[in-house]
């Protein structure tokens, strides 16, 4: 009986290491936030100092596919500078308020993604907020072009996605993964994107031809990029190695979102 238990334990250990996608690592960070926010915030800074047993600091996210990831990163970079950015820049002739409204419209359309994921994490209040926002912005906000739910009622958008839902259920981030076009992601969040884009997103349930679907998605992408104050350019110029910098930022950002 005991040997059986040991084998199961070893097997599950092996699986959790080798298959990061299904690795249901218990989030240690989660509990430390609950005990004392203040101390936890500093502990991170001060404890990291001491040499860890292995002689190497624990990485924010493991990246065994770095070579491949850097390749995709390079392609995305070229794609961004030679195609997407020029288009977005040219598109900026459209007045800002109009682009803002288009962004609001797409965001409103994607409400189900946020609402479903909030519900899956039992964030009942947030689910209510999202549904309330959908109701108010679709009607008073003229099909979502405006955001009176936030400006008039103070109902903030709740950024929830399927990657965070998986994290909520204890799925660790798994390996770092740079996806074509989507950019920085992880094994878990990549699965999340599939869930959000191809299962929950209401656009899947509209009868669209493939090129129409991609047209709409590309338009959404370029429009939202036109509103971005060139943050990628800033990172690329200022950091010694943009790949490493973005990877660290992504890992921290996702962890904080899941612990929220």
């Amino acid at each position, binding site marked *: 009986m005991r040997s059986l238990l040991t084998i199961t334990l070893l097997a599950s250990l092996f699986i959790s290491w080798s298959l990061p996608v299904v690795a249901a690592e218990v989030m240690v960070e989660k509990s430390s936030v609950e005990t004392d926010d203040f101390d936890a915030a500093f502990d991170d800074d001060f404890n*990291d100092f001491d040499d860890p047993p292995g002689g190497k600091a624990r990485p924010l996210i493991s990246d065994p596919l770095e070579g491949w990831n850097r390749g995709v990163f390079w392609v995305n970079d070229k794609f961004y500078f030679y195609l997407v950015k020029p288009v977005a820049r040219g598109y900026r002739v459209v007045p800002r308020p109009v682009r803002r409204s288009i962004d609001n419209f797409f965001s409103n359309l994607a409400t189900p993604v946020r609402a479903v994921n909030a519900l899956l994490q039992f964030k009942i209040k947030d689910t209510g907020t999202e549904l309330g926002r959908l109701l108010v912005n679709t009607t008073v906000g003229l099909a979502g072009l405006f955001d009176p739910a936030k400006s008039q009622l103070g109902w903030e958008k709740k950024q929830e996605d399927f990657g965070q839902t998986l994290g909520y259920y204890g799925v660790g981030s798994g390996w770092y993964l740079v996806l074509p076009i989507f950019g920085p992601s992880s094994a878990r969040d990549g699965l999340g994107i599939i869930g959000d884009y191809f299962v929950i997103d209401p656009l899947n349930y509209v009868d669209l031809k493939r090129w129409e679907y991609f047209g709409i998605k590309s338009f959404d992408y370029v429009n939202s990029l036109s509103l971005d104050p060139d943050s990628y350019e800033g990172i690329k110029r200022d950091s010694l190695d943009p790949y490493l910098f973005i990877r*660290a930022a992504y890992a921290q950002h996702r962890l904080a979102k899941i612990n929220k």
Partner: protein
Amino acid sequence: MKRIFILLFLFCLFFSTSLWASSGPTLEIKKVVDAVLKVLNQPDLDYAGKRLKVSGMVQKFINIDSISQRTLGVHWKRASPEQQARFSRLFVQVLENTYLNRIEDYSGGTVEYINERVKEDKAIVDTVFVSDKLEVPVQYKMVLQQGVWQIYDVVIENVSLVRNYRSSYGDIVSSEGLEGLFVRLESKLAEPAGSGKKE
């Protein structure tokens, strides 16, 4: 009886002045933010002029030793005192350049002070940068040294700058060594300021 009152009065006076002198963490943040925003909001000043005026302003408010130490993390202890000093010197310049390059992106906005938590010689100040385009939560982590509150980390939208630098610099040191990191820092500093961006 009267003497006790006078004593008490004097004591209060002393106490209040000493409180003023030590100044709180939020006050320190306000000082630097107000000073920088004052320059940035000058309509007749061009980018180069603003850059010149802001440079050096921020350095006074950050704890250079502690920010450099935390950034190098495990590699700090292994470095020689000369290497530590060299790193601090280079890193502060890179930090400042990064900050100054951001000036270009600024187009109005204010800072709201949300919360301040102090525990012994450490403090966290929560602020939000608000403009018509975006709202960004910015958290300052501070440490009290020689009676002055100094910044040792800035957390923007839950991303700690120090942890980010530690992670990426740590990788560079692991593969190229400390000297490799110095070479990279120096070549970054040699790049012309405020270039590479066109709007």
